[in-house]
């Protein structure tokens, strides 16, 4: 399946040529979970990574679906 990934905070800097308006189109196996996507993007070891889909924070075990837009954020605590 294919998901569109938008990266926020400083995460975009880890992907050469990343453009915020386009995001990343990522092919991952059907049935993949959030943690699989993070591994695929080599972000699983990145401290403070948070994933949100459709306005909700999704835990690592959360299932992804084809066509989803996935926001990968850096955890913040206020401002």
């Amino acid at each position, binding site marked *: 399946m294919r998901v569109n990934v938008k990266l*926020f905070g*400083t995460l975009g800097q880890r992907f050469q040529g990343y453009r915020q308006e386009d995001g990343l189109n990522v092919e991952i196996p059907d049935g993949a979970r959030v943690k699989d996507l993070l591994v695929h993007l080599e972000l699983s070891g990145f401290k403070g990574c948070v994933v949100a889909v459709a306005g909700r924070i999704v835990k690592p075990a959360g299932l992804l679906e084809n066509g989803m837009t996935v926001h990968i954020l*850096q955890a913040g605590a206020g*401002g």
Partner: protein
Amino acid sequence: MKFLRVNMGSREVTVEEVPQAYMGLGGRGLTSTVVNAEVPPTCDPLGPENKLIVAPGVLSGTSLVNTSRVSIGAKSPLTGTIKESNAGGTVAAALGHMGITAVIFEGQAPAGELFIFRFDENGDGSLVPASAYKGMGTYALAEKMLETYGKKTSVLCIGPAGEQGLTAASIQTTDVDGRPCRAAGRGGLGAVMGAKGLKAIVVDQRGKSTDAIANPEAFKEAAKAFAKAVKEHPFTGQMLPALGTAGMVAPVNSMGAFPTLNATKGVMEGWEKISGEALAQLIQERGGNPSHMGCAQCIVHCSNEFVDKEGQYVTSSLEYETIWSMGGMTGIDDFDTIAKLDHLCDDIGVDTMDTGVAVAGAMDAGYKNFGDGQAAIEMVEEIGKGTPFGKVLGNGAAAIGKHFNHNRVPVVKGQAIAAYDPRAMQGNAVTYATSPMGADHTAGNVVGEYMAGALDPLKPDGQVEASRNTQVAMASVDCTGLCLLASFALTTPEGAGAFLNAMNAKFGAQMGPEDIPAMGIRVLKEELDFNRKAGFTSADDRLPRFFYEEPLAPHNKVVLISDEEMDQALTF
């Protein structure tokens, strides 16, 4: 340790030892304890019985990083409650270097008279006539003060809004570059300062009388370890230096909690245009500074210097809360307009949050269209000019609601909410409702719990406890002078341990981890006690009805915390 009382009526300045009852206190702990002990709870906030207390944190002026917050306390003319609002910049460190524990301004200058209170390099304070500066904006005033007293000078001042006694008036402080762009914005304390006839406090930065540290070697070690923890924390070491607090635009919109168009939606259409990522890129392209050091001893550098298309300075720092209030709430999605509004607010001396929410309220009431940037600029300019409409707007969102007979006004105890919608972050509903300060995110923001996945923001379970814990933690932090943002390093064992060691080394104490929240609980008790005596009851600890009745898209939730649950939040 010097404790000053300045009688604005008689112009008498008294220097005394710190009274026993206030010993060991600093920052919010000191301002709130003094207000509760010395200010008649039912007094007119703009009358002579109110007092304005300025107190650096207990660690301000030491070598511990990010401890440059100055607390300012009084009875608030905006909320009628006790109030502490704190600001960064350089003044806390300057006061700390002089060994000043607090300055208490009492009484009132004779009508029409205006003064500056100046600390010279020996730490001696005196009142200086300042009628020449009447009506002056804070930028011009700060420039004059630095010209007159030298570049090594910190300024804490009000603009025209404070002089007019407007209840959203801020107190501005200068940053490391001498610009009055840091604010103790909330609660209208600028109006209290104006009512006393005090235009500015000017502090020489060359003081050399910092209070002694009980165990200097241990303090040095702890300070080093704490700085390491701040640098290594992903939020304080990576995200804030890169994007500043504006980095929160993406997460909060991604969670559907960004109050938009006067809190009618939880996601702003086109929010990416005003995100932290877009801001950093724009500043970089124009030759500004996206990672600026705004406050003394700051190693986070969350500040920025926003410049226009020609590369000329507009404002510093463009922060998340202002981007929200002047952008999300009003539907204005261009940084140039938002930055101009930020500069205007700083110069006139009004809270960007209450003012932005007031502008949004006026738009929602049909006075102007959402998204009309020019109209927003003209409205805010009216505050500085002192027009009848400007006076209403400068009294904040609640006053605008009354003016237009419009009941969708997101305020609690008269103070505007912050950039986290309480329907999509139920813990923040508890904080807004129950904080002794009125709606205030800095009193106990639960967003970190949601991002950590520790709590579901849309369900009522666990929210009261989460709000209570953060309110206690923030009350503790606010005593020390530590910046709220740097305080997130305290969430790691290394950071928390180092900070506790620094406190113990400073005071020669043997505090344990449990003593830190105990400090916060003590402060909250003082504040709740004052509010009770001022006539506030649990009936005041409620959000406006529309938060309970109008579901917020995209989650279509209302506030789910019952009154009974709200009443359990701060029972100590």
